[in-house]
């Protein structure tokens, strides 16, 4: 079986390569080229998914060699551990619908000239991420990691005429490259200590001591954190996501960010021996900060894709939060409790992938139909795009962590993890958990507010612009993938046991984890570590809910009249689209309450003819300060460039200076040599 799977995996990569080649040859004929690359990608994803599924079920690793780079003697080895299989599974579940969606979406989102390029990058991105998850050794990993970065950069820069997307691509490249630098250093230091570059022998346990160990953790945390989008390493994310075509944004959120998380789990949490308490604290802290800041920023965005991007940061935060709880438990030698926490973050990885890609695809439909990403220009789309609306609503409810949908499950587990952390850790340290819990609660509630706003403003009430008024529903081929994802969100919410069972397998494969009781007695229920403490059966509530819904229907429909339609009451005045509540207004209270975070700057100008009390129009501009860009990255970049510019005096064109360098070097070396020895 293993060999067949190996063939499957190798085949998948082969197919991608062929697809790339053929699509490049067919660049002259966009339609055909698009078809080839996407079909190839679809098949490849399916094959990888199958392999992953097998490993998850069989709970045994599959490994082999993809390719031997003769010139450098480097071997590309792969190893499907249960953990990597889980991430591959997530990847496959998202990649397949997104690919199908792209088949229709690219026709208008990507100009024919660029089809070949985008197709190539699309395949390389997916292939690279698959390889990242499957890599068995450092060099394979770094190869795939770099390739992944480049492919994404190309996709982000597709519309390189716009300054924004050029900037986004560059920012992304630079940040991820710095991250990669950290990874290279970390990996090679560890591999030097281990005397081998294969993960299997490198990450068995504690290979470093004292401050070096902390330094290694820091290196890896930064390296993977950049990709995962942990605050304050997140700045590239909200720039890059909107710049790319929507289906690509879906992949970036669901897959690229996940790659970072994979690294965090594989190396930071379980690769460097028993995690140190401070590491766990760092994860808890930065996790909750990312969650809260992410959702707060999301709440004020009017560009729907930026909004979704920020909410990705939020969800990464939640994932890292769970991981941090797990590491804390590990640090105190409670492998059983760590299991819950890690399972929580792994579950959230899947759930986030599902609903975030669903939402991005929905956003894609909207952008395709209206040509704008600004929700202030939308409205009333539900009448025009009923299906898109329904699916987007499903996604919105899922991401808000409402029961019966999948978001709730993983957040429930995360809460459990935090409570256990509180119960299991001694002393003051334990107080971090309830704080983190409070942050998580705040995050969830704010997320609900954020997505009420996102859905309500763009899909409900009257259209605010002509484009919104003339919007049309997307074609079936774009809707079907969303339908699939929406059903997936519901299924994962109603049958959490099934998923948690699978995760259990991946979790126990991690070093130091003991899983006492399985998470699930049956497909519909989840039990946290100690059954008596808490369990949940969403489906049961679902039944009650359905019954109650029936009651409400009965109560209200036994009536003598049919419902009458009337215009909305406008205090005697007449209501137009312009009097509707705007997104900006909706988030105003939050903006005011958290002004310490936003540091908003507002300007209001009233244009009046007669008197200031009867303004003809009032212009309102509000922008929030890009804190990190301004206070963290700006100075760094300016500093580097300043130094670089300063260095220019070395090459000021004076031959005499150049000769002086040689003189100085010579004298220096002669002095170094000294005289009699």
């Amino acid at each position, binding site marked *: 079986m293993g060999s067949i799977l190996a063939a499957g995996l190798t085949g998948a990569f082969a197919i991608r390569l062929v697809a790339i080649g053929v699509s490049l040859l067919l660049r002259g004929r966009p339609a055909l080229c698009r078809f080839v690359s996407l079909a190839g990608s679809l098949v490849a994803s399916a094959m990888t998914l199958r392999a992953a599924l097998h490993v998850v079920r069989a709970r045994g690793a599959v490994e082999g060699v993809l390719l031997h780079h003769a010139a450098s003697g480097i071997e590309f080895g792969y190893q499907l551990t249960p953990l990597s299989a889980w991430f591959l599974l997530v990847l496959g579940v998202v990649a397949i619908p997104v690919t199908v969606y792209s088949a229709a979406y690219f026709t208008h989102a990507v100009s024919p000239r660029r089809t070949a390029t985008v197709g190539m990058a699309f395949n390389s991105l997916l292939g690279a991420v698959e390889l990242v998850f499957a890599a068995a050794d450092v060099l394979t990993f770094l190869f795939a990691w770099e390739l992944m970065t480049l492919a994404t950069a190309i996709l982000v820069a597709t519309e390189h005429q716009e300054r924004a997307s050029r900037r986004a691509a560059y920012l992304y490249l630079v940040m991820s490259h710095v991250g990669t630098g950290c990874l290279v250093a970390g990996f090679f230091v560890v591999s030097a200590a281990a005397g081998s570059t294969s993960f299997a022998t490198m990450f068995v346990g504690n290979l470093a001591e004292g401050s070096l160990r902390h330094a290694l953790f820091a290196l890896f945390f930064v390296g993977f954190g950049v990709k995962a989008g942990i605050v304050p390493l997140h700045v590239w994310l909200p720039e890059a996501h909107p710049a790319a075509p929507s289906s690509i944004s879906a992949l970036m959120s669901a897959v690229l960010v996940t790659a970072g998380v994979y690294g965090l789990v594989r190396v930071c949490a379980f690769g460097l021996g028993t995690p140190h308490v401070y590491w766990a604290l760092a994860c808890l802290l930065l996790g909750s900060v990312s969650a809260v800041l992410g959702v707060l920023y999301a709440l004020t965005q009017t560009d729907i894709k930026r909004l979704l991007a920020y909410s990705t940061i939020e969800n990464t935060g939640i994932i890292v939060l769970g991981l941090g709880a797990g590491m804390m438990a590990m640090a105190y030698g409670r492998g059983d409790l760590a299991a819950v926490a890690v399972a929580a973050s792994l579950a959230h990885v899947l759930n986030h992938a599902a609903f975030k890609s669903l939402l991005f695809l929905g956003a894609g439909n909207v952008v395709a139909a209206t040509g704008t990403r600004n929700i202030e220009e939308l409205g009333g789309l539900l009448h025009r795009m009923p299906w898109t609306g329904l699916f987007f609503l499903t996604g919105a409810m899922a991401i808000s962590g409402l029961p*019966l949908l999948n978001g709730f499950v993983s957040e429930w587990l995360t809460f459990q993890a935090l*409570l256990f952390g509180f119960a299991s850790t001694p002393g003051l340290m334990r107080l971090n958990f309830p704080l983190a819990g409070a942050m998580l609660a705040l995050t969830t509630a704010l997320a*609900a507010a954020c997505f009420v706003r996102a859905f309500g403003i763009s899909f409900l009430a009257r259209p605010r612009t002509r484009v919104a008024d003339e919007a049309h529903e997307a074609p079936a081929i774009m809707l079907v993938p969303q339908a699939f994802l929406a059903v997936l969100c519901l299924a994962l919410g109603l049958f959490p046991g099934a998923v948690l069972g699978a995760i259990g397998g991946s979790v126990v494969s991690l070093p130091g984890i003991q899983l006492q009781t399985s998470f699930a007695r049956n497909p519909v229920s989840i039990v946290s570590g100690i059954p008596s403490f808490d369990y949940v059966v969403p489906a049961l509530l679902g039944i009650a809910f359905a019954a109650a819904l029936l009651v409400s229907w009965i109560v209200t429909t036994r009536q003598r009249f049919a419902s009458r339609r009337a215009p909305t009451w406008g205090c005697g005045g007449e209501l137009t689209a312009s009097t509707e509540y705007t997104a900006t207004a909706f988030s105003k209270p939050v903006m005011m309450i958290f002004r310490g975070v936003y540091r908003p700057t507002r300007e209001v100008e009233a244009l009046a003819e007669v008197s200031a009390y009867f303004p003809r129009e009032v212009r309102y501009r509000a922008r929030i300060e890009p804190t990190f860009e301004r206070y963290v990255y700006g100075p760094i970049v300016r500093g580097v460039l300043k130094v670089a510019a300063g260095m220019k005096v070395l090459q000021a064109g004076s031959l005499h200076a150049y000769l002086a360098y040689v003189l100085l070097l010579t004298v220096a070396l002669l002095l170094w040599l000294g005289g009699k020895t």
Partner: protein
Amino acid sequence: MSSPLFHAIGIALAAIVQVAAMLAVAPLLKTLIKKLKARLQNRQGPPLLQGYYDLAKLLRKEPVRSETASWIYVAGPRVYFAAALSATTLVPVWTASAPLESAGGILLLVGTLALGRFALATAALDTGSPFGGMGASRDMTIAALAEPALMLGLFTSALAAGSMNLGALVRGLVQQGPSYHPSDLLAFAGLLIIVVAETGRIPVDNPATHLELTMIHEAMVLEYAGPDLALVEWTAAVKELLYLTLLVDLFMPLGIATSLSPAALLISVVAWAAKVSMLAIVVTLIESMNAKLRLFRVPELVSTSLGLAFLALAIRFL
């Protein structure tokens, strides 16, 4: 006929009875508070059955809906209603076990209530009336601010009792007997503030007003009329009753029936009525002795309760 089926039927019956009872009592509580308040202001106040009259009337009225609205507008109140009802089945009221406690505990309860809020807020945006938006925005904001404090407060009791499942929790508290631990008081105070906020009472919201600038919950449902409005009002009442019951369960569970004997049940019902009406009086007193806060002062209030909850946790477990 197999025993699991019996079991299922038993659960269903229990749930139905409890839900029905809560539905029946909720309007009374609402009017009771109104009446008490009126008395404190030396007014006559409405008759005790006013709540029922209102509901009956509204239910019989012709449903008028906005032209711009979509199905969301219709679904909103119903989901709100259904969520609250299914939430009630998770809470023990007269017996020391909730009918549907096998479905989940505190987190599920909070989640379910959030589901209802989400639905109503979304629906409020559907008419295109600025009031709806304003109400939705404010309601979601306040809920978001209240959430952490609510969770922390609940965690304190849950960790004390060693279970997040309300049924098990109450049983635990009952057999532990009354613990006069100071943390209980703090947690209670914290949660009380949250309940006030969640049920839209002064000083956070004013259920009586219809002034544009002060409305929160009212603004959100301003467009609703007839049966739709009836559902909303009724649900609000049930939610209020639910929150008070929750406080009762967590902090004064004494007297709740641990067996199904008629005597125990009787005592438990009476005790519950007494405790709930006592809480109602407290709420009324708060409402009559305070003025409504400005929206941007609410965070201060809520953070106070957050602080209380955290303090409770700290002194309880350190």
